[in-house]
C-alpha cells in the first residue's frame, strides 16, 4: 500500500457527490451516491462489472447526457460549484475534466496533432508555444523520449501502451483539474501497465485522479482511496489501506478477497 495515504478529513475535497441518482431510461444505474474525492490523490472505484463505475465517471464530465433518455438527480460539486448548475456549460466543464478510456483511442492523426487537438479547440496557439505544450504533455506522460523523433507520424502506429500514454498526454495538455480513467490498463500487457501505474503516482501532484479498475492489485498499488460499488450503490469508501485490510462491510471483504466479481 502506498505510504502517502492520508486520512480523508485532513485533505481538501476536490469533488463531492451528494445523493447522486442516475437513470438510463427506466433502469436506475446509480442510487444515492455520496462520495468525497480528495484533491491531489488517486481514488480507485472498484466493484463487479455493471455496478455503475463507468456511469459515475461519465456523470462527472457529463458525457452521459449525450445518451438519449438519461436523467439524474442529486449534485456533483467540483471546487465549490455544482456541475449541474444552469450556468455550467458541459463543454467548458469537460476542459477541466480529462478522460482516459478503456481502449486507447488516439485520433487517426499525427502524434503531435493528437496532443494539440484539445488545446487548439479553445484558443489560437502559436507554433513555439504549441511545441512546448506538446513536449510538456508528452514528458509528463513519459512518452517524449520514445516519440520525439516522430511527432509527425500517425499515432495509430504506436504500441498499445504508448497509445494509452498518448491519450493521457492528450488529456493532460489542456491542464485538467481532474483526470477520469476508465480501466485504462485493461487492454495492456503487464509491462505497459506498470509504466502507466508509475506515471499515475507522479501525476498525483498535478491532478486529482479517479480511476476505475477491475484489478484489486492495481487499486492497492496506485490508489490512496478506494470506493467499492455494488449494484449502483456506494457500499464503502475510505483510505485504500483500511478498505483492503479491515473493510467495514462484509460485502466489501467478500469482493476484495475474490469471492465474487
Amino acid at each position, binding site marked *: 500500500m502506498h505510504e502517502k495515504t492520508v486520512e480523508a478529513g485532513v485533505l481538501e475535497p476536490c469533488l463531492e457527490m451528494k445523493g447522486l441518482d442516475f437513470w438510463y431510461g427506466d433502469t436506475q444505474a446509480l442510487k444515492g451516491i455520496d462520495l468525497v474525492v480528495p484533491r491531489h490523490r488517486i481514488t480507485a472505484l472498484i466493484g463487479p462489472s455493471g455496478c455503475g463505475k463507468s456511469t459515475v465517471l461519465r456523470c462527472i464530465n457529463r458525457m452521459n447526457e449525450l445518451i438519449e433518455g438519461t436523467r439524474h438527480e442529486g449534485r456533483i460539486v*467540483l471546487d*465549490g*460549484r455544482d*456541475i449541474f448548475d444552469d*450556468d455550467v*456549460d458541459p463543454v467548458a*466543464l469537460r476542459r477541466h475534466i480529462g478522460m482516459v478510456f478503456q481502449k486507447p483511442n488516439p485520433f487517426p492523426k499525427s502524434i503531435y496533432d493528437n496532443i494539440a487537438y484539445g488545446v487548439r479547440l479553445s*484558443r489560437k496557439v502559436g507554433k513555439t508555444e504549441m511545441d512546448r505544450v506538446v513536449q510538456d504533455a508528452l514528458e509528463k506522460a513519459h512518452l517524449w523520449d520514445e516519440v520525439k523523433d516522430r511527432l509527425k507520424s500517425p499515432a495509430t502506429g504506436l504500441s498499445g501502451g504508448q497509445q494509452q500514454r498518448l491519450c493521457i498526454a492528450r488529456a493532460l495538455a489542456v491542464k485538467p483539474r481532474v483526470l477520469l480513467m476508465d480501466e485504462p490498463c485493461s487492454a495492456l500487457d503487464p509491462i505497459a501497465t506498470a509504466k502507466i501505474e508509475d506515471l499515475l503516482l507522479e501525476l498525483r501532484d498535478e491532478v486529482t485522479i479517479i480511476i476505475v479498475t477491475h484489478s484489486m492489485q492495481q487499486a492497492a498499488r496506485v490508489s490512496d482511496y478506494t470506493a467499492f460499488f455494488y449494484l449502483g450503490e456506494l457500499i464503502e469508501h475510505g483510505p485504500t489501506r483500511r478498505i483492503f485490510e479491515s473493510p467495514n462491510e462484509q460485502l466489501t471483504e467478500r469482493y476484495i478477497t475474490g469471492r465474487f466479481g
Partner: protein
Amino acid sequence: MTTPGPFAPDAALRRRQTKEKLAQGLLFTASSMSVLILAVLLGRLLWDGLPAIDWGFLTAKYSPLALLTGTTGIGDAIVASAVILVFTMLFAVPLGVAGAIYLNEYAPKGRLTRMIETTIANLAGVPSVVYGLLGLAIFVRFLQVGANMLAAALTLGVLILPIIIVSSQEALRAVPNQLRDASFGLGATKWQTVRHHVLPYALPGILTGNILALSRAAGETAPLLVIGLPVYTTMVGVGPLDPGTPLQTRIFFLASDPRATVQELAAGAVVVLLAVTLLLNLAAIVLRHRLSKRIKW
C-alpha cells in the same frame, strides 16, 4: 455562488456554441429539404394525376382519337408492363440467383471469382442507356428478336442482373455456416445442402432483393426507348413478340405532348407507375423487416 463560475462559457466558448447551433440548424434545414422535396413531388403528382384516374383510364387502350379529347387510357400499357416484367423476371431471376449461389456456395477463391465479382460491381454502375445500346445491338439486331416486348424484357433482365446477384449473395451470406456443416456432416451433397438448408433459409432475403430489382425494372425507361420499343401503338398483343408500350414509355410519350389534357393523363399514368414501384419497395422493406426479426431469434 453569484460570480460566473469557472465552468460557465467564456466569450470564446459562446462563439463556439453559436457555431454549434448554426451547424445544427443548417444540417437540420438541409435534411428537411428531402422531406420537402418528397412532399412537393408526391403532392403535386397526386394533385395532377388522381383526377385522371378512373376505371376507364385504367382499362381503356390507347387510341389517337381518344387522345385528342384527352380520354385515352393506359389499360394496354399496364398489360404490356405486366408482360414485360414477367419475362424479365423469368430471364433474370434464375440466372441471377444461380450466379449468386455459384459465387457464394461453389466458387473457389481465385482469379475467376474475383473477376466475376469485379465485373458485377462495374456492371451495376453502367448507365441504363448503355444497356439499351446492348439490347439494340444484340437482342434486336444480332439475335433478330425485333423491337418487341421480349427484347425489352431481355434488356431489362440484363440490366437488373447485377442487382439480383448482389442482393441474393447478401442473403446467402447471412446463412449461418453451422447449417451447412450440419448438412455436410450428415453426408449430403453440395446441391442437397443448398436446396434443403441454404436456400430455404435465404429465401426471404433473396425475395427482397428480387422485388427491389423488379421495381427498378418497372420504372426503367431509357433502355426501352433505345432498343426502339414503340412509344405508342394501337396493337394490343400479350405475346412476347408483340410490340407493346409499357407504362414508363407511355408516360414519356404522353409527357412530351404539351396539351393540358394530355399532361393530366401523363400525371395519371405517373401516379400509377409510382404506386406500383413504391408498393414493391414497401413490400421489400416489410419483408426485410420481418427477416431481421427472424434472425434475432
